[in-house]
């Protein structure tokens, strides 16, 4: 049961007869009148229990986009339903309005649209529908909550896809597929073709030229069908927020951009999220299928407050591929203490594969080193310098073990990783 503002107004209106007559007993009469009218109104309200509900929710939506869910309410009774309906979506599902007035005539059905702009990745659920069914006078309502469960998945936004065209263009340049026709920078011999003015004279194949009467040049193309294995750390350190983005989300962005790039460059991408168990894995997919599988597997994964188990990572990589591969570890390489596991495991990987450690750095640390205004800030600057030193020590250790480090602030990491991949590919180190 719920009172309405009209009920309160009706009750307050009692002041008129009381003042006019000046008799105390009028109060009792008025209260009786209000209670009787309210009770009749309540009895005339449609019982929510007799209504039928159906919810049509979207299946998936990318974070930052807007979708809508539809609630169908059928009124099988002989009375008209006058109600206010609340569609109970979770707060982060971002429902724009969740209290909607609705009238459903007898034996009819109405639809209620809720516009949703989710604010967090993962599975967003709607638990129930609450209906306040008013009587014809709208004084008192029957309030009932009905469970109508449904949910949809909010996928990672993949904001860095805006960088994809420019990086793909650079890949095509490597490929020799552009009109510029520069000498292929890859290492794989592709074919012989006639010399055109502008070609690098160093690429002229003299032996072939000798066989024919025209100048012939060799062309190369970048290696294809290489393996790229991306391992995202979903342990404790990935929960840290840098520039209002958890590390794991930055790692997802980087992984998506790299995977998109690598799959269009003809490489095979394996993707896994791991802490102490495999949280998600995508293997053997390519093209658009790969990205859609990756975002789906990423969507529900949140960091766990446990330490990453690096010892099992070489085994995981071995399961993915036995060939030489580019192994990208998206994790945190900040303090020597926290990176012990990573450093101990790296030699096993670097012995066979090219390893890149992608780490998000906190730009506020570098900013803190420059602020020397107060006593507190000098001590903070000292601690920040110390943190930077730790970072460079870890990076040096990783380099010594034969892997390379890409560490940037969140907005720059995906692009930096993509460029690193292109550089490796151009140098033929895959």
């Amino acid at each position, binding site marked *: 049961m719920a009172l309405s503002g009209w009920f309160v107004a009706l009750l307050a209106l009692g002041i008129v007869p009381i003042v006019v007559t000046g008799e105390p007993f009028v109060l009792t009469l008025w209260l009786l009148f209000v209670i009787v009218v309210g009770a009749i109104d309540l009895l005339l309200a449609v019982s929510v229990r007799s209504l039928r509900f159906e919810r049509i929710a979207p299946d998936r939506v990318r974070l930052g986009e807007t979708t809508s869910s539809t609630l169908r309410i059928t009124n099988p009774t002989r009375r008209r339903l006058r109600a206010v309906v609340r569609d109970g979506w979770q707060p982060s599902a971002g429902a724009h309005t969740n209290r909607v007035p609705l009238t459903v005539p007898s034996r009819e059905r109405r639809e209620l649209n809720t516009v949703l702009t989710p604010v967090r990745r993962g599975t967003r659920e709607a638990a129930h529908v609450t209906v306040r069914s008013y009587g014809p006078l709208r004084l008192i309502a029957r309030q009932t909550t009905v469970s109508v469960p449904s949910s949809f998945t909010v996928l990672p936004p993949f904001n860095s896809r805006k960088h994809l065209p420019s990086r793909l263009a650079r890949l095509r340049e490597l490929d020799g597929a552009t009109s510029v026709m520069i000498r292929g920078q890859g290492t794989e011999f592709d074919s012989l073709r006639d010399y055109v003015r502008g070609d690098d004279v160093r690429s002229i194949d003299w032996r072939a030229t000798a066989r024919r009467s025209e100048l012939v040049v060799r062309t190369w193309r970048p290696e294809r069908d290489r393996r790229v294995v991306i391992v995202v750390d979903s342990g404790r350190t990935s929960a840290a927020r840098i520039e209002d983005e958890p590390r794991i989300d930055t790692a997802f962005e980087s992984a998506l951009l790299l995977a998109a790039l690598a799959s269009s460059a003809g490489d095979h991408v394996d993707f896994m999220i791991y802490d102490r168990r495999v949280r998600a894995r995508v293997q053997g997919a390519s093209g658009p299928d790969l990205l859609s599988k990756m975002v789906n597997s990423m969507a529900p994964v949140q960091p766990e407050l446990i330490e990453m188990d690096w010892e099992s990572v070489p085994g995981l990589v071995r399961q993915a591929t036995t060939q030489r591969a580019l192994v990208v570890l998206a994790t945190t390489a900040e303090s020597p203490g926290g990176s012990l596991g990573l450093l101990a495991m790296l030699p096993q990987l670097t012995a066979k594969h090219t390893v890149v450690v992608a780490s998000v750095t906190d730009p506020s640390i570098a900013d803190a080193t420059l602020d020397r205004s107060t006593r507190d800030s000098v001590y903070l600057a*000292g601690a920040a310098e110390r943190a930077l030193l730790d970072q460079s020590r870890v990076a040096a250790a990783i380099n010594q073990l034969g892997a390379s480090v890409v560490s940037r602030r969140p907005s720059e990491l995906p692009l930096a990783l993509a460029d690193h991949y292109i550089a490796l590919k151009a140098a033929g180190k895959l």
Partner: protein
Amino acid sequence: MSDTQVTATETTVLTPRIGTTAKRALYWVAGSILVVLVAIASLNLAGTAVEGPPLDPTSAYEAGTQALAEVLRDQGVDVVVTTTLDDTRAALGSSDDSTLFFTNFEAYLSEDQVAEATELAVTVVFADPTLTELLRVAPEVAHAGQNADAVSASCSAPLVAQAPDITAGPSNYRVIEPSAEITACYGNDDDGYGLIVLDRGDTELRILGATDALSNGAITAADNAAFALRLLGEHETLVWYTPSFLDLANSGDAKTPAELAPGWVLPGVWLTMLTLLAGALWRGRRFGPLVIEKLPVTVRSSETMQGRARLYERSTARLHTLDSLRIGTIRRLAVLCGMPTTASVNDVINRVSPLVGQPIEPLRQLLIDREPASDYELIALSDELLALEDRVHAVIRPA
């Protein structure tokens, strides 16, 4: 992304029916009623405080006089309790076989009303009059202060013959102008008396200071009971008059706010309160239960750094802090001068010295040797390091 539609039709009503709610609430309602009942019962059994209005014939407290009133009734005296002067006047009527007992502790009665009361019955007992009241009704008697010793009769009035010893107090009175019409009894060493009887012809006025003797707490002590029964039980009717605030209204033109206000004010106030309550229910009713959402963990990344800074500060690790700052500066200077980050300090100093036109020794002091003795020195050194970086930067990459 894809917008595949998913339909959910599996519904369950979560709100319990009224019957179920009532059944669930029954336990608590019954429990609360039981608690209230036990509380009331135990309050009644334990009885209570010793407080209560003094000389109240309906009060069973220690200061009340219910015991005396009940015994007088048993003895056949018609005890009438009144609270206004009008009622008193009506109860007494024109009877010439009645006693009036009254007090004016709370000063509800004006002097005129007191004077009127002292003439209403054949026998009037005025308990504990004040100085000003005595000036008006019995100028020959004066107040003699407070005294609470046990006293003996010390007079020959028949009234006190059976009760030689009573509990005295709280007040005593003194006779200023002795005459044949005045009898003073229960005196103490200081010429103060607990009871003074004035014969006024139609009326016998008894000024009673020893009112403690009438109270429930003391009535059984000494000869108090005998004294009280003789004092008040002489006549067929006893009117026990305890003035109340109703006498106030009759004593002047003043009216209570309730009388001044129009009739609708009180119900209006009630209606306003009920409306406010209904308004609170209207606005406060929750629109269905909250939707539960599991929030992800949030860890701030710079926590370690800030913790370390606080640790340095608390333990005043000045040299340690300064060394961290120096290492940072040296690394940046090395990069600026095109040396590897692993370059030694001496190499960096040798390279920087000609750039900034500074001899090697003060640079060595700044970058290696000096130890800060206070926070002030630490801040000064850290500023010097920044200034050095700026100078090198200006030389190598002029804007």
